[in-house]
């Protein structure tokens, strides 16, 4: 561990969002008042479909957008009215946004130069960061002479050289190819373990969210759908939106009606026992469905063999049901499937609000 690591770990501060809201024209709210606490040193991924307000939220934290209401605090400091440079946060951009006419060294050193740091100290800092990121031999090059992954690393170096209390990433991996994205994910996870900066990472890629995050904040139309660990989000989604957004293929959702004893599909087929009345949505993950000899009947429509597992698409009373079977499972060639939905793996959501009904299958 060198000086930079310790300095960043020491600077890491919690982020408190208190009724933060954003509206561009004063009437339509891009982000309605929103509360969240991002703990110091934690890696938080903000996940959501495009247009959900996640980039706006990040730019408000960074200070590139003004908040329309509410307060943002880093640690005990209120920062919502400060300029980005006064907030002590740094950002990595989607398309790197390196200065094309400056060398790697000058790119990384620019913020220190603007801050008026004396040259010898600057050189020392930049070299320490460059060594940490494996950029030491590239310091004299221009960004145009670097590969995508190297540019990404320069962008990260530029961010961490200031020893920021908060490190922000705006979809930093979306410009890379699949292999490089995987490698950079590993590097980012490792980097975070080393420097322990409070990190906010915006993405629409659920794999990045699941692999990198300590906690995931799922945004939908500016509102927080769920803010929890990846494991909880996957196994206990708080809403239909989260259930459908996470997982590949996503959770199956079918509309059901309860009569106080059982849940039935529209065509009358019984799905599960549950003492509720009225309209609900029933969810089950594709890999939780058991094949063979169960009470639930469905017609096979299509199958995709992916090698490691097979995905079946079946028709369940007019709904598409996706089933993931483990490799080698004998599913035969039958068009009629008999399925079992294990009650412990079922999720019940309110038909109107889409929120989960807790403890519906706990008996």
């Amino acid at each position, binding site marked *: 561990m060198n000086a930079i690591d310790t300095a960043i770990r020491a600077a890491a501060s919690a982020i408190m969002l208190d009724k933060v809201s954003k509206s561009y024209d004063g009437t339509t709210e891009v982000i309605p008042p929103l509360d969240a606490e991002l703990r110091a040193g934690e890696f938080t991924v903000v996940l959501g479909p495009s247009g959900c307000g996640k980039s706006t939220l990040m730019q408000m934290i960074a200070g590139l957008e003004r908040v329309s209401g509410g307060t943002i605090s880093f640690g005990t400091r209120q920062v919502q009215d400060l300029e980005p440079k006064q907030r002590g946060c740094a950002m990595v951009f989607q398309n790197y946004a390196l*200065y094309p006419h400056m060398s790697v060294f000058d790119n990384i050193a620019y*913020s220190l130069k*603007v801050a008026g740091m004396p040259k010898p100290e600057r050189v020392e800092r930049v070299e320490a960061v460059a060594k940490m990121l494996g950029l030491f031999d590239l310091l004299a090059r221009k960004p145009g002479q670097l590969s995508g992954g190297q540019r990404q690393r320069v962008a990260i170096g530029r961010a961490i050289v200031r020893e920021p209390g908060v490190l922000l990433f705006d979809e930093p991996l979306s410009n890379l190819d699949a292999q490089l994205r995987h490698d950079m994910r590993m590097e980012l996870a490792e980097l975070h373990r080393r420097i322990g900066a409070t990190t906010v990472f915006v993405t629409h890629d659920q794999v990045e969210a699941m692999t990198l995050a300590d906690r995931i904040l799922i945004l939908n139309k500016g509102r927080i759908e769920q803010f929890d660990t990846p494991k909880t989000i996957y196994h206990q989604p708080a809403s239909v939106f989260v259930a459908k957004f996470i997982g590949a293929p996503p959770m199956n959702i079918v509309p059901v009606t309860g009569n106080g004893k059982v849940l039935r599909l529209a065509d009358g087929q019984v799905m599960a026992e549950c003492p509720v009345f009225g309209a609900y949505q029933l969810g089950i993950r594709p890999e939780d469905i058991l094949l063979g000899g169960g009470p639930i009947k469905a017609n096979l429509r299509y199958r995709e063999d992916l090698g490691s597992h097979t995905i079946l698409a079946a028709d369940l009373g007019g709904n598409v049901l996706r089933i993931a079977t483990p490799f080698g499972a004998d599913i035969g060639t039958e068009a009629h499937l008999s399925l079992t939905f294990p009650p412990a793996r079922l999720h019940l959501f309110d038909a109107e609000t889409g929120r989960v009904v807790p403890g519906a299958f706990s008996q």
Partner: protein
Amino acid sequence: MVENARSLNFVAGTVLFLGMLYILGPLYLTLTTATQSYEFMLRNGLVWYPGDQFFSNVIRIFSETRIPQQMANSLVVAVSDAIVTCVLSFLSAYALVFFPVRWGSVVFALILATIMLPLDIRVITTYQVASNILSPINALLDITGLNSLIANVFGAPVMLEWSVLNTHFGLIAPLVAHGTGTFLFRQFFLVLPRDLVKAARMDGAGPIRFLFDILLPLSRPSFAALFVLTFLGGWTQYLWPLVASSTPNMQTAVVGLARLAPDMEGVMPDFPLIMAGAVVVSIIPLVMIAVLQRYLVRGLVLSEK
């Protein structure tokens, strides 16, 4: 398809060759004429082969005409025009692209209007203003009725007068008011990644630092291209210098060249002298293009990333 392409190449080559003849022919004739003596031309007319009087003609240009003084004027006009245009265009494009300017699109439309209404069309009104650049203030005083009030109190209305005709400033200022450069820089700024501004802000750079540290170095090719184009435009201006300068000492080289031909009828102009002058006057723009031509192309393609 190969035969087809070949015949197409042949036709294209022929057209190109004819076009070159059309353009280079008069230029060649300029050169050969510049090398003959006045007497030789009077006897033989314009000829297609070179003579041996080029240097004596050039020496006469420097000793008998005001072309050297006028080239200095041209240089002052062209260089000032180029520099001031670059600075103004760069700053106005910076304001229009990177700041939320109220009525920004109206301002930009007005700037573009200068491209559609070039100086040659506005020459009479521009002359009026240049002959008294305070005349708008006079007009304002007249319209508002302030002048009749002043006339009542002091006995005479205010008539401010300041003519910039026959000055370098008067030659340059109307040329500078031209929107091409603003348009060029605006298009260049628009293709820069938007995140660059945000990255600079995150690094703590304010608008001025961003301008000098990031935007200015990136705009170098655009600057060079605009500088060359404006310089050439200023150097070859004819109409405005003709009307804005009345004494030979203030005229530019291109105007001076035209004046070398005598106004009297029946006198054969000294074409060898005039052509030698044309060659001398062309040297500076030629050198300019030779030195800066690679920037010219790079700055205009707008793909500098």
